[in-house]
């Protein structure tokens, strides 16, 4: 394996007295689907925001495609090829689906005809073609998740960060969502997925990193993860409100 696409080292971030991330480090190979697992409040979204440049870490390094990116900001990260979705969906509600996705496409396209063509491709890829000209606010929650993914894909990312995209979906919708993730990977895009429900993620991912209380608990193949006593304890602890 050559140099990983993403390598993070010693990332720490506190919000006031809350240590959201403590000394986190791992690497993601190009073409991989990495699961980032952990109970609520484990620091998954915080870490996503740091990788995507939305917030700066207090300490630590992030190398993406051979470049140091910690603290360079979300706009620069997007330009370098990091796309993302948000745990709480953020659609541009005064625009149609097509217009939403065109915003992403305009990152690489100057002319609106080119942006429109690119947006049309991704919308079709994400299965939203029938909803192309409706206002984004009229979409159902699973459609909004797809819209966020389409918008991020329109920027032609090399790395895609998906924050709880399967949460709250019916089993059928989740199946469709997992197919979409596999299709995205088949395009050569590396993916990090956050999910706090571990079961849905395991069949999909190549490797998992488990966070708990801001720290990395362990990382490994899905089969190793589920057998690990600390993972079981962390999840049971969460479930019974310990």
């Amino acid at each position, binding site marked *: 394996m050559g140099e990983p696409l993403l390598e993070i080292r010693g990332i720490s971030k506190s919000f006031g007295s809350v240590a959201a991330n403590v000394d986190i480090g791992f690497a993601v190979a190009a073409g991989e689907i990495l699961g980032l697992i952990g109970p609520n409040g484990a620091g998954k979204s915080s870490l996503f925001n740091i990788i995507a440049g939305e917030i700066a870490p207090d300490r630590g390094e992030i190398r993406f495609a051979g470049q140091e990116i910690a603290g360079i900001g979300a*706009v620069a990260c*997007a330009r370098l090829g990091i796309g993302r979705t948000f745990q709480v969906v*953020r659609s541009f509600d005064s625009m149609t689906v*097509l217009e939403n996705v065109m915003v992403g496409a305009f990152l690489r396209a100057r002319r609106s005809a080119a942006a429109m063509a690119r947006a049309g491709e991704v919308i079709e890829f994400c299965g939203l073609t029938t909803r192309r000209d409706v206002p984004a606010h*009229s979409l159902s929650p699973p459609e909004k998740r797809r819209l966020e993914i389409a918008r991020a894909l329109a920027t032609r990312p090399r790395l895609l960060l998906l924050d709880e995209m399967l949460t709250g979906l019916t089993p059928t919708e989740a199946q469709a969502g997992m197919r979409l993730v596999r299709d995205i990977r088949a395009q050569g895009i590396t993916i990090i997925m956050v999910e706090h429900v571990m079961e849905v993620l395991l069949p999909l991912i190549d490797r998992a990193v488990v966070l708990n209380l801001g720290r990395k608990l362990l990382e490994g193949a899905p089969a190793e993860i589920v057998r690990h006593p600390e993972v079981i304890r962390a999840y049971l602890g969460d479930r019974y409100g310990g």
Partner: protein
Amino acid sequence: MAGAVRGTLVARRRRELWLGIVVLVVLAALPFGVGNAYLRGLIVLTLLYAGLSQAWNILGGYCGQISLGHALYFGIGAYTSTLLFTRLGISPLLGMFAGGGLAGFAAFLVGLPCFRLSGHYYAIATLVIGMMAALLAANWDFINAAQGITIPFHGESWANLAFRTAILPFHYVMLAYAALIWFVAWLIEGSRWGFFWRAVKDDVAAARSLGVSIYPSKLAAAAISGAATGIGGALYAQYIGFIDPDSTLDLSLSVLIALPAVVGGIGTLWGPLLGAAVLIPVQQLSVAWLGSAAGGIDLMVYGALIMALALARPEGLVSFFHIRASRGATGHG
């Protein structure tokens, strides 16, 4: 598939442009159906405000940055072209672009610190800056302070944009202005910048995640909006023939510039014109009937009307015409 993708959005934009051309023709013919000089004057003022409010809408409607200080850019445009004409003999035809440029630059400068502020603080900061500018102008001798400047009249002239006896030329001057700013807004709607600005308005974090730089987007929108407002100020100065801080820099003017877009439909192509067509005649008539000396009763009438409109139509007057759009929104399945 690509053809179908181009379909609706391109078709919608083309329809808007055709509608714009039809409205332009109708408005150009309007004076021939209106003989009354007072009414003609009212129409001229309405067209001016349609343009000014569209200029405001570029920043407030498309980029979501609510300015309550646009009188500053109006005043800079008015004073620049007037001073260039009265002191240096430069035609207002050129002066209005100098005024527009300076006003755009001023809007950029105001944005530099103020766009660092979040949310409603931008509105408050522009309000304060606008009021301070009005105060300074009223005490600045170089521009005749509170006395104001009368534009000397050397006869009817297109070269100097000067007409006293006929309102008709100003009808076409203001119509050209309103049409120009409308067209700029139409161009912005379909452009990369326009998409970025609307993204900034709707959700900054999502916009950033797609590579949209928030601060430069706001600055660009402010500069264009300010420049367009400044040109309107210069045209107003030529129309009235006299400017002073009260008539070109006052807070009430900032409100009057913003309101047509807000009432007509913020962030829409037709909102400012519709809003101006309703608000400006009402405002002028209430001033004429009740008198501006009547302790601000005209403002109360005006305010009551705006409240009624806002309650009846929160999305603005354009929503009366949105049968087509709402059918598109619900017409799936």
